[in-house]
């Protein structure tokens, strides 16, 4: 390959490596909070219909 193409290719490699590092250190805090809330709803059974149905039928309480 000619020198210009080689240089461009090297630059692209460096750029993509830097991009990978950027992605790696990024923690999706909002998505993690959403995931946590979904699991907490299910484990503590805070919301009907969140995840699998509870083993015992929910008492049809007045949800006012």
């Amino acid at each position, binding site marked *: *390959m000619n020198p210009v193409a080689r240089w461009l*290719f090297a630059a692209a490699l460096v*750029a993509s490596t830097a*991009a990978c590092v950027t*992605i790696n250190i990024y923690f999706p*805090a909002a998505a993690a909070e959403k*995931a946590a809330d979904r*699991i907490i709803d299910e484990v*503590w059974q805070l919301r009907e219909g969140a995840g*699998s149905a509870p083993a015992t039928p929910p008492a049809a309480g007045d949800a006012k």
Partner: protein
Amino acid sequence: MKSASMPSGSWAGRLAALFVGLALAFPVHAQGNLEIDTPAISALRKTMQQRHAQLAPLYASGAVGIAADGTVSLRDAAAVPLAQRAQANAAVAAENADRAALYREIARANGHPEWEAEVRRTFAQRWLERAQPGWWVQQGAAWSRK
């Protein structure tokens, strides 16, 4: 080899394809939901949900509290009748083992095992915030009743 005879124009094409690929890959990584529906995570969610029936009265009595580090803690063993103390201890230990596995599995399922500590921190904060009135929660080192 085929590529050796290619004109340099095809390198520009490859570069363009590389950049387009990167541009497409970025948003996919940067947003959206975390994966929490793998078989391992689903199994943990299910056992934790079932165990909650056993733990809920312990939270309510204050025997077990929601700790600041994303675990639960037997903070007042005296609140549990002696005959049930071993059982309560076992439930707390099993719950904490499942929680540790849950945080690890979520980080792994999303391709970033190194996120485990941050997943744990996020959960710790949400468990505390969503604890029900009357439950004991740990903030910093101090316990307080919600």
